[in-house]
Every structure is written in structure tokens, then in C-alpha cells.
């Protein structure tokens, strides 16, 4: 239990309070159901439910979940980071760089498992650099990760030769045939490895948050850093560890994206940091830290992916930026209203 809700329960266990808490904990599921319901009835006049063309058409659902794999992978660790009161603007660039590294390894003949492992190590190193800049060199998280955003993006662009937009088959080198099966080929329920990896990451991080000291320390660090430090938690190490976790998930996201697109695109993660922040805020995580659940961010990611992909059948693609921006503002505003209500109680 989070400290905030447990103190709430002690003060006034009235009916209204229970309803309020229930809503706060589960509203995100209602939003998901609502979005899916709206999208599936939106064009019922033209297509029947579950038919081709309708949102709930089986292939469509599978496709959305496949495309969602990178975002679903990222949402969990990023939640832990924001819960501890920190932020990482470089995730998108770290994801692009990992995608490029993975594609380069694969195209040069490194087999799947070593290529995968090396990329994950690279991702962890990128996270470690962020952690060191923020904790050891004491640079404000926003600036530190803005620096690495630029740095990782630059390295990713440099790794791809001039005149070529991405690492792909051509010039005597050929992508191995196994390359896109990780992100595309259905292994279970028609869904690929990348998706199941995202699920595994989320389950692992839910356990980390609920059952391990790391999860509790993260909340403590974000809720009251000074108190956490004084109670003997080495907050610096916790934060560095979480930055490394974010780096690892960024690498996994990069691998998923790269495999799905069959190329190593140095711009593939551009803007991802905004989408992840949006998803985590949508899940009710406080921007100032100390509160937030991994699972709710996961649901938030599903909502955003359903919305952005599902919308494509209804309105032209150029509406996307506007909708995402408006959703970000709405999520931030509703978070604020909820927390103000809580404070006034």
C-alpha cells in the first residue's frame, strides 16, 4: 500500500470515501473499456462488430498489440522512475540507438541471442550514464537527460552511414531471415515474442513494485527524499538502478521496434519520451513523485495505442498530434484535480 492511501483509510472510512478510492484505483480500466467501446461502435453503420473494418476485428486487435510492444515495455520502468521523482527525456533516443545497434549486429551476422544480449547491455549502459549524470554529477534530471537525448540521437545517426536513412538490407549486406520474427511472428494467441516480452517485463515490475524493497524505496524516495535518506535508504543507488532499468526497457523497446520494421532506424524512437510521459501520467502517477502504479501505466499505454491506431480508421492521420497533446493536458489536469481533492480531505 502506498503511504498516502493508508493514511486516508485511517481517517474517515465513509461510503463516499470508499467510492472515491475505488474510482481512483480503477478509473483507468473504465477509460480503457470506454475507449474500446467508442472505437468499436464508431463505424457500426458500415461494418459489423468483429468484422473486417471494425475495431474489434481479430487481426486489428493483434496488429495494435504488436505495434504497442515498445510502449508497453517502456511504461513500467518509467513509472518507477517517475514515482521516485525523476524523469528521463532520453528514452526515445536510447530506444533509437538500441534499434540501430541491434540491427547492425544482426546484419553483420551476429546470431539472435548474442545480438539481443549485447543490445540489452548497451541499453543498461545508456541508463547508467543518465544515472551517473543525475546522481553523481548532480545535474538536474531534465537537463541531464536532455543532454543524453541529443547525445544518443547523434550517435545513432552517426552509426548509420551518410546517405542511408536506416540500417537495412543492401550494399552486399542482408538482414537475416530471423530478424523480424521477434516483433511480427505470432507465437501464442497470434501475438509475437516482443509482445510477450512486454508482458513479462510488466509482470516482473509489478512484483518489484509490490513485493520488493526496491519498490518501497522508490516510493519513499519520491515521496520525501530527505526523510528517505535519513531513514538510511541510499536513494542515489536506488535512482541509478531505476535509470538502468529504464535503459534496459528502452533497449527491449528498440529491439521490438527494429524487428517489427525490419530495419535499424535512428529516428524510430523520436517523440517516444512524450508518449511515455503521457501514458504514465494517464495512469495516475504524480509528476512530483511518490505515487503511481506500474499496472495502471500499462493500461494507460493500451488506451493510448488503441486511441491513436483506432483513430486512423475514423479521421486522417494528421489529427494525431492534436489528440495526443489534448490527452496529455487532460491527463495532467485530472491528476491535479484528484490530488487536490485528496489534499482537501
Amino acid at each position, binding site marked *: 500500500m502506498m503511504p498516502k492511501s493508508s493514511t486516508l483509510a485511517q481517517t474517515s472510512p465513509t461510503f463516499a470515501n470508499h467510492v472515491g478510492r475505488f474510482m481512483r484505483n480503477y478509473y483507468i480500466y473504465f477509460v480503457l473499456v470506454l475507449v474500446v467501446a467508442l472505437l468499436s461502435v464508431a463505424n457500426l453503420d458500415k461494418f459489423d462488430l468483429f468484422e473486417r473494418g471494425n475495431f474489434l476485428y481479430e487481426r486489428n486487435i493483434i496488429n495494435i498489440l504488436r505495434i504497442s510492444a515498445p510502449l508497453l515495455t517502456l511504461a513500467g520502468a518509467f513509472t518507477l522512475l517517475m514515482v521516485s521523482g525523476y524523469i528521463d527525456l532520453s528514452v526515445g533516443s536510447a530506444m533509437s540507438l538500441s534499434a540501430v545497434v541491434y540491427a547492425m549486429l544482426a546484419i553483420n551476422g551476429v546470431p539472435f541471442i548474442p545480438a539481443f544480449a549485447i543490445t540489452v547491455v548497451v541499453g543498461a549502459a545508456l541508463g547508467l550514464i543518465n544515472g551517473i*549524470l543525475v546522481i553523481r*554529477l*548532480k*545535474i*538536474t534530471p*531534465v*537537463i541531464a537527460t*536532455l*543532454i*543524453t537525448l*541529443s*547525445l544518443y*540521437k*547523434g*550517435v545513432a*545517426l*552517426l552509426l548509420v552511414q*551518410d546517405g542511408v536513412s536506416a540500417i537495412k538490407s543492401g550494399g552486399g549486406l542482408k538482414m537475416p531471415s530471423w530478424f523480424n520474427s521477434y516483433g511480427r511472428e505470432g507465437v501464442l494467441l497470434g501475438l509475437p515474442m516482443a509482445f510477450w516480452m512486454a508482458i513479462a517485463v510488466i509482470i516482473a515490475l509489478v512484483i518489484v513494485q509490490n513485493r520488493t524493497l526496491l519498490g518501497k524505496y522508490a516510493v519513499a524516495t519520491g515521496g520525501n527524499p530527505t526523510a528517505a535518506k535519513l531513514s538510511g535508504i541510499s536513494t542515489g543507488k536506488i535512482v541509478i538502478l531505476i535509470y538502468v532499468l529504464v535503459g534496459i526497457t528502452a533497449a527491449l523497446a528498440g529491439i521490438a521496434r527494429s524487428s517489427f520494421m525490419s530495419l535499424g532506424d535512428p529516428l524510430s524512437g523520436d517523440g517516444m519520451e*512524450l508518449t511515455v*510521459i503521457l501514458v504514465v*501520467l494517464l495512469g495516475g502517477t504524480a*509528476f*512530483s513523485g511518490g505515487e503511481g502504479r506500474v499496472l495502471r501505466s500499462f493500461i494507460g499505454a493500451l488506451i493510448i495505442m488503441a486511441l491513436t491506431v483506432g483513430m486512423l480508421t475514423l479521421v*486522417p*492521420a*494528421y*489529427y*494525431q*498530434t*492534436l*489528440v*495526443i*497533446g*489534448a490527452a*496529455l*493536458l487532460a491527463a*495532467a*489536469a485530472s*491528476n*491535479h*484535480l484528484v490530488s487536490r481533492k485528496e489534499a482537501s480531505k
Partner: protein
Amino acid sequence: MTITDSTPPLSKGRTLSEGGRRMSDETFIMLLVGGVAVGLFLIASVMVPNFFQLLNMLNLVTNNWAVISLGVGVTFLLVSGNFDLSVGGIVALSGVLAVWFAQSPDGANSLSTGLGLPYWLAVLGAFFGALAIGAMNALFVVRFSIPSIIVTLGTMMVARGIAQVITQGSQRNTNLPDAFGVLGNMTVFGTWVKLPVFLMVVLLVVAIFIERKAVFGRLTFWIGSNPIAANLSGIDKGKHVTYLYLFSSAIAGVVGILLASEFKSGYSNRGTLMEFDALVIALLGGVAIAGGFGSVVGMFFGAIILAVVTSAATGLVLSPDWQYILKAIAVFLAIMTQTWALARRNR
């Protein structure tokens, strides 16, 4: 530096006991940044052929008029302890709006059909569109007290999103009155100086005056360095920050209109990453992200540093991909040097 010596000790690191004799930390950082800018320029002149030329020096400033102008608003907001990442989006929005309003209503297809307003009304409308985004920033940051970085990222996307909807994801550049291209390309006083560059210089002078001499500017520093004390001294912080957001969005609006006029087009991706460049030059110029510290002159030197680094890289025939890495290194070194120099000085 008589100006700062005569001002009361408002800045963070300034010690009262030493009276007016010691240079303030702000002046110190400003000189440091200025020194670095000049030093980098000299190094680049030695290394890059044809770099040391009057025209090149002027180009370093004139090519960056848009980002430097945006930097003024962003600097004031940072000093007050707030981010503004929406300026790039506003640049796109106001440009697109100006074009859409001015296009004649009898175009062949939807992208060449506008509202057909007279030119002055189109520009005015676009300007108010920009102000609306600034007002939205202020509403969310001041009234709802949501962290400004989140708010302005959101409004950046909303502003650019509206621009993308109006241009259907591309650009509008047909069916415009001839008057539309005048503002962005005209020169002033019969010299070769373009109007946007001249406006940037005026803006810088006015901003420096406000920052140093006007009550408004000094209040901005108070709010940024200690919001609670500012509140207790009866300063209406919300109103002040609202003005700052309107000020910043107004600058971005004018920049957008001038750019649209210069290229005679409303392009929905114009100004992409300008918000980050404006933030980066402010940081390079020693503006503290926590608020209460920084100067417009420092920001200007920050812009020169960035311009020297990127144009020297181009001169050294590095691939353009290098600019991201160079930018990262420049910001990293700037932050570390400033922290180190201030810590040494105030030991």
C-alpha cells in the same frame, strides 16, 4: 559593469556583507559565458578556413534571429522558475494561421482555400491565436498548478496539432496576396538588415532594460529565487507568470508570422525543436533551471556558442549528424563549468 553593481543584492549567490564592491554571481557567469563564446570563436577561426570574416560573424547572429528571439521569452520564464516548451509549436501555429486567414476563399482545392481576410487582419488573428496558447499555458500552470514542463509539452503538441489539421499535415503556400511576403523579407532604413533581425535587436535591448531596470524584471527574479517569500511580500505571482507566458507566446507568434512571410508558406513542421534550442541556449548562457538566476545577455552569448559550435562543425566538413553530439557536449561542459566556477567562487 556598473549596472549590476548599483542594483540591490537580489540574486541568489550574492553575499550581503560584501556590499556593492564584489561583482554579482550573475555578472560573473555572464562574463564567463561571454569569454567562452569569444574563445570558441577564436579557436574556430584558427581551425576552420575562412571562419574569421566579418560577414561570418554577422551571420552567426542573423541566421539565428528566430531562436534568439524565442530565447528571450524562455529566459524570463526560466528565471521565474517555469518552463516554456510550447514556443516551437506556436511558431508553426501562428504562421499557418496567418497563411490560412490571408489565402483567398476561391482556391482550386482545400489547401489553397483560405478565409480571404485582409492582410493586417490575418496577421492580427494569427497573433491572437498565439496568445491563446500562451493563455492556455498560464491557465494550466497558474490556476491548476500543474508542472510547467508537462503543460507546455502538451500545448506544444496542441499548437502544432492544430497547425497540422489546418494544413492537413503538409503546408499551405498558394493563393496568397502579394503583400504577404513583404514583412519577412523587407530591409530596414535602406540597409541590408532584414526587419526580423532588426526586431530581434530591439527586443534584446528592451528585454535587457526590463530585466535590469524595470520593477517587472526584478520581480521575476524574486519569484524565481524564492516563490514563498515573493508571495508573502504581496507579489501576485500568478498574475506575473501569466504575463510572462503571454509575453513568450507573443514573441513566438510574431516569429511564426515573420517566418511564414519570409517563406510565403504556412508549414506545420516549422519550428520543430526550436523550443529545445531556445532552452539549450538559455542553459548555455547560465540561466538556472531552478529559477531566480540568469540573464538575457548570457542567453545571447549562449546562442553564439551554439552557433559557433554548429557552424564550425559544418566548416570542418563533419557530417551534419555531428551537431547533436556537439550540442550535447557543449551543454554538458557549460553546466559543469558554471557549477564548478560558482562553487569555487563562493567557497
